[in-house]
């Protein structure tokens, strides 16, 4: 099954400010009592979007001006904490196709790329400028160019970071490695048979 080549993500954006936004905040653990990822999008950032009584709070994702946004902008160390793929899955299933942040936690980054959802970094000053532009004009189109590693918005262009391996995986449609891994199985079996602890 050939995967899509991801060169460009284009859409409207929303800024969820803050550093160290952890996966418990992205998707609180109680919503992980599920055997499929379906429907997780609804619970994205649930506890920061709702009061303990379930009333909607003032939050960018509750603001109708940002409905339909497909690019999420945030701060430093985004996605830290648990390895739960429920976090990027919730973001993806809420309609997002890319995240821009100052930096990402490692496992979150890998999980996201594996879903074909680019996570690109930008420096703090550029992020502030981008966030301000998005707030001023929520209808503005933001474009992440995976190939040239730039983010374009409202006539501006800022550089963004994306490791070579991840970039190549997205561009060449290898972001979900399962097919490649399966092709290597004969070599896997040969290597495993030489390792004592792996013998049945």
């Amino acid at each position: 099954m050939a995967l899509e080549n991801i060169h460009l993500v284009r859409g409207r954006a929303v800024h969820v400010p803050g550093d160290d936004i952890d996966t418990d905040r992205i998707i609180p653990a109680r919503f992980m009592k599920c055997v499929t990822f379906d429907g997780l999008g609804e619970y994205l950032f649930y506890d920061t979007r709702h009061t303990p009584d379930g009333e909607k709070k003032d939050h960018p994702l509750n603001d109708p001006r940002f409905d339909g946004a497909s690019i999420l902008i945030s701060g430093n160390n985004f996605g830290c904490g648990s390895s739960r793929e429920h976090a990027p899955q919730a973001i993806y299933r809420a309609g997002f196709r890319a995240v821009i942040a100052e930096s990402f936690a490692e496992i979150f980054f890998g999980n996201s790329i594996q879903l074909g959802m680019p996570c690109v970094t930008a420096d703090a000053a550029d992020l502030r400028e981008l966030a301000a532009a998005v707030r001023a004009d929520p209808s503005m189109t933001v474009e992440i160019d995976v190939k040239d590693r730039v983010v374009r918005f409202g006539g501006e262009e800022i550089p963004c970071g994306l490791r070579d391996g991840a970039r190549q995986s997205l561009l060449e449609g290898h972001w979900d490695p399962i097919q490649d891994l399966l092709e290597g199985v004969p070599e896997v079996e040969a290597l495993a048979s030489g390792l004592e602890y792996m013998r049945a």
Partner: protein
Amino acid sequence: MGKSLFQKVWDAHSVRELPNGQTQLLIGTHLIHEVTSPQAFGMLRERGIPVRFPHRTFATVDHIVPTNEVAEPYSDPLAQAMIEELRKNCADHGITFFDTNTGHQGIVHIVGPEQGITQPGTTIACGDSHTSTHGAFGAIAFGIGTSQVRDVLATQTIALNPLKVRRINVDGELAPGVYAKDVILHIIRLLGTKGGTGFAYEYGGSVFDGFSMEERMTVCNMSIEGGARVGYVNPDETTVEYLEGRPYAPKGAAWDHAAERWLSFASDPDCDYDDVVNIRAEDIAPTVTWGITPGQAVFIHENIPSPDDGETESARESISEALEHMSFAGGEPIKGIPVDVAFLGSCTNGRLSDLKEVARFLEGHKVNPRVKAICVPGSQAVGKIAEELGLDRIFKEAGFEWRAAGCSMCLAMNPDKLIGNQLCASSSNRNFKGRQGSPTGRTILMSPLMVAAAAVTGEIADAREVFGILEPAGV
């Protein structure tokens, strides 16, 4: 030039380079639990792919199991559905499952070592970030996402980039009342919650040489809180001794051979690290968190910082946000803050040595009546030995609830949760907003004995004072 353990294990498990430049890495041992595996089995079913090495996957149930009821069906139908799904997946694919009726069920990071499944020089993966715990044995152990759980089930491999290696030496002697938990909280405080990004942490120095396997596990467990995906300690005689006689450890002639091979994985003395950090054990005091990330920590005798203490605008904002959530003023002492709940357990500190150490001091003390205190053994085996030693009696007499094995109040997927803005003195590893089940709940991370001190006094306290542990002069 010598090689580090990381490099040796990586090289021994590299299958080939993938088209995207990543390495296809063989995962020798795969551990699964009920929360992050069902979707992976679902993906296999969808594509009609079998489990390639079922004998190298081991399952247990920990996150959702209630620790206050053992009979099924559980009162929570979703929890019941999750355990049944895992049972079915294991049965369908011929995977060993340490189910609740086996006497071996428990938190996955406690069960692997105690069964002798976790071994030096191996690669381990589990759909859980605290898989780094297994690095205590000189294994390279990765927390992975659910799609990668699928990859391991289907191919026994994952696609990865190699990591750099940072050697962290802790030399000298820890003062009485200072524990492995303080060591790792201190390391994270120094290097930051994302200081470990891109690195494997290799812990060493005289403190680690002297540590038991359980202490090493406590430190490796929280590598992920320091941003490092992997943390490990080189295997030595302590490692070999721990593994001898365990159910899955090699036996007879294979044993001698295995032990020798294991030790050969230790980093060579002349290997080149990408970074080296040196820490003096004498500089570490009992450490507690005050904020909403594990890096926001102070020594017990220090004050909580104020926003003005932040060096950058974003640091000041982080401090303000944390103080607001914790309802702390900033600039006040951490000692003396009232607590509502005391939680002793988790894959960081739910092992036998943790319970023994606390019981040693707790005997004769009573939990403050304002505090709800629970003690949750990390595995059924830990619970059983603790009961044989009479530790359960000491905990119960002091006023702790004595529970069945599981993750319990470490996270909010079972009945144990904070209510409202309760403040919990916790031996677990995460103090994120909402982590313990109430969006406004508050968590202070600390060593098990400090949790006991908080339970007894009803406030954040210095265990050394509460339990009369003498400090050497000058600390």
